[in-house]
C-alpha cells in the first residue's frame, strides 16, 4: 500500500566531501522526512563513501526522497534497499557491571546471542552484539535487566543479497 508507514532503507553512494552528510541530512529535514538511523563509512575507494539511511515513511515518499537525493551533485547513486532483497544488521556495545550473581546470566546472554566481550575492567565489561533490529531490541531489554550502565548503537547497515 503506497500510504503505509514502514521503516525503509536507502543506500546512498556519495563523494567523500566534508559537507555531504550535511546535504543529505538537509534534504531530509528540508522536506520534512525523518532519519531514523544512519551509518556512513568509506568504501575501498577513500574518495567514495557509502551511507545507509533508514526512515519511517510511505512508498510514495521514499520514491521522492530517492529522486531528491539523486539530484544532489555529490550523490553518485541513491537507491532503495528492499527488505526481502537485502540483509539489514546493527551492532551494539553495552557496558554492564560485573557482580557475582550477574556473571552467569551475562555469560548465558553472550553465548545464546553470539555476543563478544570486547573490554574487561575490574568491575564492568563491555559486550558487543550484532543482529537485526528485533534481536538487538530483545538483547538490550535483557541487558537492562542486568543493570546495563550505558550503551552505544550503530545505525542499520544493509547489503543486497546475491542472486538466489
Amino acid at each position, binding site marked *: 500500500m503506497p500510504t503505509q508507514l514502514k521503516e525503509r532503507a536507502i543506500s546512498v553512494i556519495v563523494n567523500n566531501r566534508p559537507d555531504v552528510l550535511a546535504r543529505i541530512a538537509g534534504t531530509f529535514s528540508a522536506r520534512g522526512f525523518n532519519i531514523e538511523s544512519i551509518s556512513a563509512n568509506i568504501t575501498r575507494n577513500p574518495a567514495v563513501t557509502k551511507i545507509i539511511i533508514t526512515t519511517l515513511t510511505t512508498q510514495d515518499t521514499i520514491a521522492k526522497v530517492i*529522486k531528491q537525493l539523486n*539530484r544532489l*551533485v*555529490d550523490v553518485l547513486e541513491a537507491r532503495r534497499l528492499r527488505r526481502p532483497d537485502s540483509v539489514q544488521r546493527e551492532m551494539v556495545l553495552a557496558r554492564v557491571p560485573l557482580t557475582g550473581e550477574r556473571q552467569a546470566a551475562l555469560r548465558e546472554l553472550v553465548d545464546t546471542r553470539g555476543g563478544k566481550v570486547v573490554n574487561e575492567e575490574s568491575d564492568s565489561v563491555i559486550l558487543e552484539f550484532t543482529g537485526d533490529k528485533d534481536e538487538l531490541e530483545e538483547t538490550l531489554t535483557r541487558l537492562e535487566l542486568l543493570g546495563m550502565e550505558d550503551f552505544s548503537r550503530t545505525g542499520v547497515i544493509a547489503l543486497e543479497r546475491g542472486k538466489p
Partner: protein
Amino acid sequence: MQQTGSQILFRALKEENVDTLFGYPGGCVMDIYDELFRQDIRHILVRHEQGAIHAADGYARVSGRVGVCLVTSGPGATNTVTGIANAYMDSIPVVVLTGQVPTAMIGNDGFQEVDITGITRTCTKHNFLVRQIGDLHRTIREAFQIARSGRPGPVLVDLPKDVIQSVMETDLLTTTLPPGEEPPCPDLEGLCSEALKLLLAAKQPLIIVGGGVILGKASEICRSFARKFQIPVVSTLMGLGAFPASDPLWSGMLGMHGAYSANMAVSHCDLLIAVGVRFDDRATSKVSAFAPHAKIIHIDIDPVSIDKIIRTDISIISHCTPAIETLHRLVNEQRLTLPEQPIRAWRNRIHQWKAEMPLSYCRNQNIKPQYVIEKLHQLTGGRAIVATEVGQNQMWAAQFYRFDEPNAFLTSGGLGAMGFGLPAAIGAQVACPDRLVVDVAGDGSLQMNIQEFGTIVHYGLPVKVVILNNQYLGMIRQWQELFYGRRYSQSDMTQAPDFVKLAEAYGIKGLRATKPAEVKRVLKEGLETPGPVVMDFHVEPEENVFPMVKPGTPLTEMAFGNSRARAVA
C-alpha cells in the same frame, strides 16, 4: 608564472566568457576588487547585495547566460539569500561569489563571518567552500557548469580571504571538467511513440508550456509542434512568452489568476502535454481536480518534478528540445495526422470560452491598473522586456501584457519575492542595452529595493519604472477583502514617499498620472524620453485581480468580481 587567487579567479571567469559582474565590495573581497581594478570585466556596483543577486538573475533570464554576482562575507552574503532562494525556485543559472574569513578563522565567530554554505545548502543547486588555492580554478569552472546544466540553478562559491591572497604556479594549470549532467533520455524514441499514440487518440488535446521551455530554449520548436497539429496552448506564469499570445492557438495563462479560457481548457481537455512545467500549486490549484479528464504526458528535464504532484501517464525525463524534436520526427516519418474535425470543434469551444469571459475590468473615473498595462503593451508594440514585482502588479502585467517572445517576462514566480523587479530590470538592461526594459511595480514592492535607483543613474540605464500605485499592499488587501472580512490589517501603505520627488532626488525624471486621460500621455512621454524614467500612476485603490481561484478549490471555480462571481461546473 605565479598568480594570486584573485588572478586565478578572473582567469576562470574569462574562460567562462563572463563579461559582467554585479557586486558590492567589503572587507573579505578587497583583494578581488583590487584585482578587478586591473581587469577589463564590467562590474555594476549596486546599492544593496540583494540588488546584485536579483540583477544577476535578471541578466540570466534575459540572456540565457549564467549571471554572476560578487559580494563580501557575513552580511554581504546573507543579503543575497533571498535572491539565491528566488533563483533556486525559478531554476535560474547564477553563480554567487561570496568572500569569507581566512580558513584558519572559520568557525570561530570572526568579524563578518557566517556559514553561508550552511545557510544556502538547501536553496542552492550546489555550493562550494574553496579551502586551498589549488582547488580554486576547478571549483569556479565546475560552479558554472553545474549552474547551467540540466535543470539550471544558483551555485554559490565561498572564497576565504587567505585563499584569494595566496599564490601558486599556474603555467600548467588546466581543468578537465566531468561531463555535464545531461545524459540523453534512454528510450526517448519508445516513450515518444507511446506519447504519439495518446495524441492520435485525443479529441481535446492541450499543450501547457512552462518555464522549462524558455530555459531550454525550446520556444521555436514547441511553436512549430503546436502549429503543425493545431493544438491549443496554455501557459503557466513562468512560461509566458514561450508561445506567442498573438497566435490563434494561444488560450491564456492558467492558474489562480489565470484566464477563464485557460482554466476551462485544462479542466476539459482529454490529453495534456506538459512541457517544462512543474505543476506548482498556483497553476494547478486543487490537485485532485486538476485536468480530471486528461491523460497526461509530462516532459521535463528533472526527474524530481515527474510524478511529484500530478500522476502522469507518460513521463519523458529529457531536455524538452530532443523530446519535441523526436515527436516531430516520428510524426513526419509515420506521416501521422490528427483527427481534424473533433480538434477543430475543441478549438472552437476554447474560442467560445475566450469570447464569453475575456480578461476584463470595469472602467470608471479612476485609472485602472489593467488599463495602464494595456496601454503599455500598445505603446511598446508588445516587445518590451517587462520585469515585475510581486502581487497585484505582477498578475496584471502577466494578464494584460501579451508576450509573444520568450526571455521578455521577468517575474519572481516560485518564491514571489517583492523587490525583485527593479534590480532584475537593471540586470536585463545591462544584458540588452538596446532593448526597452520596463519594471512594473507596486508601491509596496518598489520600496523594497528602491535604493537601486542609484544604480540606474550611476550607469545611465534607461529603465522605465511603471508604478501601479494604489497605496496598499494590494494582493494582501485583496485577500483581506475577500477572505478576512475586509479587515485591512497592516496593508495600508498610504504613508509613502512622493515617488516623483524621490526619483528626481536620484536624478531620474519623474512623471505622474492621476486621471485616465493622462495615462497615454504620461506613458508616451516616459517611454520616449531617453534615459531612466519613473512613472507614478495613481490607480484605483481597491481594484482586485480576477479571475481568482481560491486555494484548494478546482480551477473551474473562478470568481470574477462583483457582477460576475460564479462557480462554473
